[in-house]
């Protein structure tokens, strides 16, 4: 019916007055449309702004917590060795210092010193690492055993937390007492970068997890890169159009969309239960992640290969190259920057992946860095997950610090990928 009236009006131009653009009604209408336009535009800007501020909020809150994880509070403890219960044979200290000091009753020395100076037991004041620090100090200068000395030793988790943010009331009181005596100081926590998992937040480090991640990534890259590049070359350059090729393509596209946890189930069922490879090992983790990364590399590789213009292939064929020479001498070098970009992005995803590795048992408590590909290991994201489950409040800053390290790695990899893409991307 409305169509009918519209037709009538347009069919009879003389019967319809010309639009009065300056009229009140029309001006209002245009103003309304323009304000709708501004509203819409503003909404779009708000969406972008909101998304970006989520990212900023996430990063800032991680940084705020995490940077504290890189420092360690220290307490200056005066120790009077001649009056302490230390048991050291000076001769044995020369020949076998480690063994001698391990038997030297050093915890009792620290306990006595702590009680004498601050009136609290050693475990409340100092980190479990303090004994190690004391040992090192004695090895470095055995002369201190003869007299009285003041050593800066790592503080306990409670004191550390009280100094940095807010600890329990007792710890806060102790910390302010220490602060008044000028006994507190802070230094860069190097042991966080060289240590492994532990039970006390002041002694944990990420090197063990980082090394596990690196070993896992070596396996992932060694498997997924050649397989991915070869499949991409085959599918793009040689594969005949038939049912098998279709099946391969469908499999690759589906694998790229399969949830990562399913790859973990595959690793558990095939690599661990059928092939009996070692549990929790970087080898199995790397193999599982390689299967997950391969489709990413194949898809990126195919796009890069597709972008190489056919004229280059024709020219090479024309001067007598074989199909294999065309691909390996001409197409592959030209497509390599694109393939590398895709590989780095895939590897960055694999480095941040947690779920499949939980399935194959890489969540064990590992207090030593793995020595090889078949040793039990954990990786950085899993370490973050494990620490986030810890009840000790000191672990919050350690978790955030580990996240900063992980993000630094990922952002570096992604920046390299973007740089490569911008530098080598050719428009033919």
């Amino acid at each position, binding site marked *: 019916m409305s169509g009918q009236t519209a037709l009538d009006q347009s069919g009879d131009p003389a019967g319809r007055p010309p639009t009065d653009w300056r009229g009140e009604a029309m001006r209002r209408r245009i103003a309304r449309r323009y304000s709708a*336009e501004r509203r819409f535009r503003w909404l779009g800007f708000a969406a972008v702004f909101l*998304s970006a501020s989520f990212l900023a909020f996430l990063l800032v809150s991680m940084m705020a917590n995490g940077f504290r994880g890189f420092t360690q509070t220290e307490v200056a403890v005066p120790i009077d060795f001649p009056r302490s219960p230390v048991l050291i044979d000076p001769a044995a200290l020369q020949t076998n210092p480690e063994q001698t000091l391990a038997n030297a009753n050093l915890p009792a020395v620290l306990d006595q010193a702590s009680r004498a100076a601050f009136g609290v037991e050693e475990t409340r004041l100092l980190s479990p690492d303090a004994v190690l620090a004391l040992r090192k100090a004695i090895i470095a200068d055995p002369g201190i055993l003869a007299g009285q000395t003041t050593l800066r030793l790592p503080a306990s988790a409670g004191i550390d937390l009280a100094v940095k943010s807010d600890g329990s009331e007792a710890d806060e009181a102790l910390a302010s007492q220490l602060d008044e005596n000028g006994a507190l100081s802070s230094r860069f926590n190097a042991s966080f970068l060289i240590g492994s998992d532990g039970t006390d937040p002041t002694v944990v480090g990420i090197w063990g997890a980082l090394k596990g991640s690196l070993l896992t990534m070596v396996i992932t890259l060694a498997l997924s890169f050649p397989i991915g590049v*070869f499949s991409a070359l085959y599918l793009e350059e040689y594969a005949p159009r038939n049912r098998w090729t279709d099946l391969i393509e469908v499999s690759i596209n589906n694998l790229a969309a*399969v949830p990562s*946890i399913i790859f973990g189930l595959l690793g558990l069922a095939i690599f661990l239960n059928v092939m009996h490879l070692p549990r929790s090992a970087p080898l199995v983790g790397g193999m599982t992640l390689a299967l997950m990364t391969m489709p990413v590399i194949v898809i990126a590789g195919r796009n890069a290969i597709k972008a190489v213009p056919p004229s280059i292939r024709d020219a090479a064929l024309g001067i007598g190259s*074989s199909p294999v020479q065309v691909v390996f001498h001409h197409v592959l070098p030209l497509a390599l920057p694109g393939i590398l970009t895709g590989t780095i992005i895939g590897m960055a995803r694999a480095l941040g992946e947690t779920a499949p590795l939980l399935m194959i048992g890489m969540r064990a408590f590992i207090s030593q860095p793995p020595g090889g590909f078949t040793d039990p290991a954990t990786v950085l994201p899993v370490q973050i997950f494990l620490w986030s489950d810890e009840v000790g409040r000191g672990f919050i800053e350690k978790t955030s610090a580990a996240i900063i390290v992980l993000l630094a790695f990922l952002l570096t990899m*992604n920046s390299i990928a973007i740089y490569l893409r911008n530098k080598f991307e050719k428009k033919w």
Partner: protein
Amino acid sequence: MTGVMIALIIVALGAIGWIIARARATRLQAEVGRLATNSRPTQHGWYVALWTTLPALVFLAVWANVTPALVLDSVMATPPAQSLPSDDFSRNAILGEARAIASGRQTVAFNPQAMELVEPFRAAMTRYSTTGAILAAILAFACGAYALSRVRPSFTARSRVERVVMWTLLLASLIAIITTAGIVASLVFESMRFFAQVNPLDFLFGLKWSPQSAALGYGNEDAFGAVPLFWGTIFIGAIIAMIVAIPLGLMSAIYLTQYASSTTRKWMKPILEVLAGVPTVVYGYFAALTIAPALRNFAASVGIPGASSESALAAGLVMGIMIIPFVSSMADDSIAAVPQSMRDGSLAMGATTSETIRKVLIPAALPGVVGGVLLAVSRAIGETMIVVMAAGLAANLTLNPFASVTTVTTQMVQLLTGDQEFDSAKTLAAFALGLVLFIVTLLLNIVALRVVKKYREAYE
């Protein structure tokens, strides 16, 4: 590790073969002239290198797989093995321990009998690995010499090497099929074992999920009803996350493609992409540490009952943020695919930019956007770490977003990370959940890709 050493030696032999063959072919080429030779010297080199390494490496791989059984046979023939207990379980335990000590993976034996077997094991292992190394070396030399003897000007090294290359490429691309088959086989096989113990209908339509009670021996009835899990997954991944991700992602894409200056676009696009690059464990930690407590306090202050510190809303919100760049890039692609003529036509009729977007571009791009959203849903329901860390473990059937719900992926992690026997219904249930997840994501992807493809064709 000796196996790796031998493999490296063989590869080194291959490299030497490559150099010798190339030198010989270069000399021959100099004698007879370039046009009289079939292949380039390098290709002769590769031919010899392949012959030297491939048969020997294949032999080593086979050898490594058959020797454990041979070693076991020869150990069982020694006198100390005669006194082993007859039941399989304890005998295998002792043998395994002895083998671990002999190969240096372990230093002390729990079982004294194992110590007696260490020496026979060590002797047999040394014997077989030495034999294998010698045989592999002989094979490498023999095959290399054979290949080297064929280096002649008329020899077709090039086509032979290229045939090997083609086979390698084909094999590499078959790995994708093998992986898919492996996933399907392992999921289906373990799920069958699960469904032998639990009725599939009870699993798919049961309303009560309490695998702990099944593990404690209360029976499998009523313990594996997965509907609360399916609901939790849909509630978090397909409802809450999409309520966040669709408007933000779509509007971001519209703003960045239609309104923003090229400088803004250049800076904002990578920033949004960073959101997609943040690992999920970081999102999970953020959700659990920052968002969830804030939401619980908010819910408690306005008096919403059942507020939990592990809420569906916290997990869903953060998951939505994670999905934003995904939705945004899919919407970006489909808007860009709408022909310029349609946009020009609308603008020429006097429509404002926003009217063009809302009335022309979005309806035209809708199939592509819908396909993108389906892909986003499939990614959201397969997402694990955010829900493991922020969504909780209580299998509730609730509409309250502040309450705790659990999801398929959370339960899979939960079922498989405890100290459980692998055969129990509890661990097998994880595979059944995995199968459901796999099928659902697969269907979503197929439908989404079909929608997107149909729509692309409409404009080409």
